[in-house]
């Protein structure tokens, strides 16, 4: 099994979750209100009030096949809006 960590702007969350559903992920977990800095942008806590939104951190545990579907579906979103995606190994307990 694989673990995918996605970090991107909260405001794109709905669109991204739709992509995940289209990729038939078995499930996902969302943690909002994340902040951070990437190569280009800094996202601070007060962004939530200005309407820009903070970041969302989404975790998906899935098999490799699903992962490649996810990859295809979310790549355009990440390249248009920004955000990062990293994969690690994981096994069910």
């Amino acid at each position, binding site marked *: 099994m694989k673990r995918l960590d996605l970090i991107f702007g909260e405001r794109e969350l709905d669109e991204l979750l739709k992509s995940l559903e289209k990729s038939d992920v078995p499930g996902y977990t969302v943690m909002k209100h994340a902040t951070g800095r990437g190569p280009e*942008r800094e996202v601070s806590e007060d962004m939530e009030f200005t*309407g820009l*939104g903070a970041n969302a951190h989404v975790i998906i545990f899935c098999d490799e096949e699903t992962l490649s579907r996810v990859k295809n579906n979310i790549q355009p979103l990440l390249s248009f809006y920004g955000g990062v995606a990293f994969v690690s190994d994981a096994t069910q307990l």
Partner: protein
Amino acid sequence: MNSSLILQNVLTPPVLFFFLGTIAVFVNSDLEIPSPLPKLFSLYLLLAIGFKGGLELQKSGFSGQVVPTVGAAIIMSLMIPLICFVILRLKLNVFNSAAIAAAYGSISAVTFITAESFLENQNIPFDGFMVAPLAIMESPAIIVGLLLVKFGLPKNRPASNKMRWRAILHEATLNGSAYLLLGSLVIGFLTAGYNPSAVEKMQPFTGKLFYGAECFFLLDMGIVAAQRLPSLIKSGSFLISFAVLMPLFNAIMGVFVARLLSLGPGNALLFVVLCASASYLAVPAAMRMTVPEAKSSYYISTTLGLTFPFNIVLGIPIYMGLVKTFIPTIS
């Protein structure tokens, strides 16, 4: 004369709490108002402004100055972004120019209510229907901003962008803050018309509490604005000058339009403040969704980090001075 107005403005609780927040950042105090409390106050203020505006609109009806003023406000929020865009393009790319232009064509509700408090403090009367132009000026500016991106660009933008037209109109008209403001205005209007006894029951929440909540919120705005300083400095002297001079220029335009509309001094100040203020709620939200290529630090730092404090502290009394000078009092 203006300097005495400035001093009188500075010594009011809302401005003093704004300073308290600003200084907290400069002296590196750990005072913070954790998320989502600022959102609570922001939602509350929008709801209360809208509701009170609706009540007043019911009283005044749509006769007299209401319709021309709203019309003029729409025109200003279409024109100001165009002027800003031309200026900004001297130094910035299309994306950034359009996003900042949209922000300055739009409005800041908190600047507006600080101006109302200023007027109350100076015992200058104004009309509640001025909330109507406030509620309406976000959308046109956003649409102009996005049209500027659309037509200011060669067709090399990725395809994902094509289908975003509906999203644009959507963001322009239905973003949370504009929607709540306008919705509360309608509710206030209906309540005053059909259910006057409920107006009084709302009064402790939307009326009496307002001033204190405004102060609390400005404390947070002071913190947030001061935290923008580093990225404001990074954004360079062109944008820094823009963030002070553009509001002044827009204010001057506003004064002459207000004169054309024969607004009294109170309404005139509010109209001027709508022109001079810039959005940090609805516009950033819309730009993030539709023009992610624009650097958010640019439009947030200028509007929130400089234009907002400038307007709150110096702008309002300066604009009042302009109004007094250029608008003949009828009384």
